[in-house]
C-alpha cells in the first residue's frame, strides 16, 4: 500500500463515520422517556461507540487491515448494542414503559403509513404513552443501531489504519498519535450530521434517512481536506527525516 491509498482510506472512513450517525438511534428527549432512541445526542453517542471501536482496533494493530476493520466494527457494535440493552432495561423497570417507535406509530416513517415494527411486525401505536413521541429502542431501531455500529466501527478503523500507515515512518509513537488523530477525525465527522439530524433520529426507518446524501457530501469535503493535511504533513516530515 502506498500513502495515496492510505489517504483515500481516510476519506472513505470519514464518510462512513458520517453515514453511521444516521443509523444509530439517538434522541436527547429520550432521557425523559419522551422520545424513541438512545437517550443522548446522536453525535456524542456515535463518538463514544467509535472510540470503543478504535480502542478495540488498536489491539489488532499488527494483524493487517482486515483484522483491524473487523475488530473495530465488533467493538463499536458491542458498545451500541449494550447501550440499547441498558436503555431498554431502565425504560422497562425504572420508568415502566415498553420500547416503541413514535414515528412508526404516527405513520410518518419511511415504511409509509404502516404502524407496525418492520422486523417483528408488532403494532406500535397502542403502546405509545399519551403525549409522548415513543420511548426506548424497539427491535427495528435496535437492528438499525447494530448496522450503524458496524459502519461506524469500520469507518473509525479505516481512518485509524490510514493515519497509522502514514505516521509509522515519521514517528516513534505512531500508534498513540494516530489514535488521537483518528479520534479527532471521527469527532468532526460525527458532529457534521448533527446539522441534518437536528438532535434526534430513529435510525434507518426515520424519514431523516433521506437526508443522507447531504451528510455524505459534507463529510466527503471535510474528510478530503483533513486527509490532504495529514498526507502533506507526513510527506513533509518524512522528507525532513531523510
Amino acid at each position: 500500500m502506498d500513502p495515496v491509498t492510505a489517504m483515500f482510506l481516510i476519506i472513505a472512513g470519514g464518510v462512513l463515520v458520517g453515514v453511521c450517525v444516521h443509523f444509530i438511534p439517538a434522541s436527547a428527549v429520550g432521557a425523559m422517556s419522551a422520545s424513541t432512541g438512545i437517550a443522548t445526542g446522536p453525535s456524542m453517542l456515535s463518538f463514544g461507540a467509535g472510540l470503543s471501536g478504535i480502542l478495540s482496533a488498536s489491539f489488532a494493530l499488527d494483524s493487517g487491515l482486515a483484522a483491524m476493520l473487523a475488530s473495530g466494527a465488533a467493538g463499536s457494535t458491542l458498545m451500541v448494542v449494550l447501550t440499547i440493552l441498558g436503555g431498554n432495561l431502565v425504560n422497562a423497570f425504572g420508568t415502566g414503559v415498553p420500547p416503541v417507535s413514535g414515528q412508526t406509530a404516527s405513520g410518518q416513517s419511511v415504511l409509509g403509513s404502516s404502524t407496525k415494527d418492520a422486523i417483528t411486525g408488532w403494532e406500535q401505536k397502542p403502546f405509545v404513552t399519551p403525549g409522548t413521541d415513543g420511548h426506548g429502542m424497539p427491535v427495528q431501531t435496535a437492528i438499525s443501531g447494530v448496522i450503524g455500529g458496524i459502519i461506524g466501527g469500520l469507518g473509525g478503523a479505516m481512518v485509524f489504519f490510514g493515519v497509522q500507515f502514514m505516521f509509522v515512518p515519521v514517528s516513534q509513537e505512531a500508534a498513540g498519535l494516530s489514535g488521537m488523530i483518528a479520534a479527532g477525525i471521527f469527532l468532526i465527522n460525527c458532529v457534521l450530521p448533527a446539522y441534518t439530524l437536528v438532535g434526534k433520529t430513529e435510525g434507518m426507518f426515520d424519514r431523516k434517512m433521506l437526508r443522507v446524501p447531504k451528510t455524505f457530501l459534507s463529510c466527503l469535503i471535510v474528510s478530503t481536506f483533513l486527509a490532504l493535511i495529514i498526507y502533506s504533513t507526513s510527506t513533509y516530515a518524512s522528507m525532513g527525516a531523510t
Partner: protein
Amino acid sequence: MLQLLLLGSALAGLLAFLAAIFENEDSDAGSASNPNSQVQLAPQIEHLHRYYNKAIAGEPPQNALWAALAATIAYILYSRLGMDPIPGVILGSVLGALIASLLQGMYGSLAHISRIASMKNFKQMLYWDSLLSPLPLSMTYTFFSALCLTLLSFVIHGLLGSPFPVPLIAMFLGFTLGAIASSTGDVHYGAERLYQHYTFGSGIAISKQGDIDVKGEYGYRNSVDTPYFTLRFGGPVTGLTFGLLILIDTLSRTSGSVWTSVILEFSIIALILIFIIYLEKYTRDRYGPFEEGK
C-alpha cells in the same frame, strides 16, 4: 500469559463496573446530563427548586476531561517517582483523581452559580445549601470514577497490552463511559426521579415537561438525596452496561487470535439482540396498551 490476560480482564471488568456506577451518580447528583433541561425549565413555569445544576458541558466530554486529567497526572507521577509499579500506579492514580475532583468542585460551583443566576428573571433564588451539600458528594463520586478509570487505563495498557498511552486510553474510556451513562442511568433520573409525583408507567408527556418534583420526603428536595434513589437501579444498570462492554471486549481477546475475538463478540451481540427482543415482548405484555387521553 493466559493467566495474566484473565486477571487483567477480571480486574478491568470490576473497575469498569465501579467507575460506571460512580460516574452515573455524579451526573445524577449534579443534573449533568440531558435531564438538566428539565431543571433549567422548572423556574420558567414557576417551580422554584433546590437542585444542584452543574450542566454546562455534555457529560461525555466532561467525564473524558476528568479521566484524562487524572490519568495524565498519574502517569507523570508514576514515571517520575521511580517507585515499584504497583504502589507507584496506585499512589499516582489517587493523587491524579484527587486533583481532578478538586477541579470538578471548582467547575461545578461556578457552573451552578452561573446557571442559577441566569434564571434571575424567573425569581429563582441561589440557595447556598443546595450548592454546598451536594458539592462534596458530587466531588467524591468524581474522585472514585476518575480513580477507577485511571486504574482501568493502566490495566488495559499494562496487563492487556494496548499500544495506546495511558492518558489517551483514559480519555477514550471516559468519553465512552459518559455516552453510556448519559443514555442509560440518567433515564432513571430524568424520567422517574424528577417526575416521582406522576403515576409509575404513565409516561412523561411533552406538556408535563418542566413540572419537576420539588418536594421530597423531607420537605424541599435537594440534589444530595438523588443518588439515594438512583443508586438502586440507574447506577447498577450503567455499571452493568459499561462493565459488560469492557469485560466482553477483554475476555474475548484472551484467546490471542483477532478473528476468534471478533467471532466471539459478534455471537455475543446476537445473543444480546435476542434478549432485547424478549425484553420488548415482556414489556409489551406487561404495560399498555395505552389509550389517548387517560
